[in-house]
């Protein structure tokens, strides 16, 4: 694992643990902000670990937002994140990745409906984080490839956000004149 990724994930895990241990009202917002932050690295390095972490933190935030048993989130998820952090610090990547997978399983057990919901949650998380990565300048097909999602689904999702509003390149009139000229319109 690249040093920069490792450093960033360790810092992310520390922040997540601090948020969960503080057990304060603002935790929800902080988790959401944290899941957005990790997208920077996911965009640059496009590695599996940064992407898994972004999805895990986002899923924790969503379960939190559903108002499920907060105490179980605090008591069950926090130890796993601590173990994952310790494993990563020791460069034990295999164990670190197992802990992250375990984190997703714990989120499932916290919410009784989550066995069905988690799949939907992960799909939504991928689309949501995919749109964020796209916003960072990565092409739509590349984002679909990184996250393993359908280009059809991502295109429709992104189309319904405000992201394509960014105006670029050739101006509209030149482009439409080109199209008209190609199709023989004067």
């Amino acid at each position, binding site marked *: 694992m690249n040093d920069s990724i490792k450093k960033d994930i360790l810092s992310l895990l520390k922040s997540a643990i601090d948020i969960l241990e503080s057990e304060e009202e603002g935790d929800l917002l902080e988790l959401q902000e944290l899941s957005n932050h990790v997208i920077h690295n996911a965009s*640059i390095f496009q590695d599996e670990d940064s992407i898994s972490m972004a999805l895990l933190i986002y899923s924790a935030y969503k379960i939190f937002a559903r108002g499920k048993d907060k105490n179980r989130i605090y008591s069950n998820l926090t130890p796993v994140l601590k173990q994952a952090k310790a494993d990563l610090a020791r460069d034990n990547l295999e164990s670190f990745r197992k802990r992250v997978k375990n984190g997703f399983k714990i989120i499932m057990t916290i919410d009784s409906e989550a066995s069905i919901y988690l799949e939907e949650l992960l799909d939504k998380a991928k689309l949501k984080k995919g749109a964020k990565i796209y916003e960072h*300048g*990565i092409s739509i097909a590349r984002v679909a490839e990184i996250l393993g999602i359908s*280009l059809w689904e991502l295109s429709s999702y992104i189309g319904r956000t405000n992201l*394509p509003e960014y105006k670029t390149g050739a101006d509209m009139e030149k482009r439409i004149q080109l199209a008209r000229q*190609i*199709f023989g319109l004067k």
Partner: protein
Amino acid sequence: MKSIFFDAGPVISLSTNNLLWSLARLKSRYNGHFYFSAAVKKELIDTPYNSKRFKFEAIQVMKAVEQGVFEITPADKTAKLAKKLLDLANNIYLAKGTGVRIVHRGEIDSLAGAEIMSSEAVVIDERTTRMLIESPEELKTLVENKLHTPVKIQSENLENFRKMTSEIRIIRSSELVAVAYELGIFDEYLLKVPEAGRQLLDGLLWGVKLNGCAVSREEIDKIINFELKKQKSI
């Protein structure tokens, strides 16, 4: 013979709006070839055909291929140039010492195909690939602002990429539907309602926008006004 190359995005935005049929009409007017690459075929047909979601959309694209609306360029035809372009494109922007992989093989295959076939245009709905060709410095600013990290342009890679793609001209599905409108391809949808033309164009352009065509609201309004002005002047 003249040709136009298609990326996956415009085919997706047109077929999810049930407008794929209009390409057959546009093609007969054009009297040339409509191509997409083997990598784009994988995204448009192979992957969705083997899943439940978007399977029917994949079948519609397959039908368009069977009917000869689209021709698929063999992978070996574009492979060499596509590999070069992909290596360059994904090593133009450096962040944290790493080349940011901003584009996908499918998008680059479309550029390589257009270059090899000397196509008149590439239809790309996607923002990043278009910016890479038309305004790479602006793309740097976007990436930098969003990543909150300094981004360096590797000038040599950008120069080489520019040289290899200098002939490429880009249009979007929004321009295609506007031209199809002007050619009367959608006339059957001109209903007895106030400002029927404006409403139809608005519906068409918002339809492609909401399914992935990177066209702004402002551009949509400009396209509508441009087309209606053209109509008046005839």
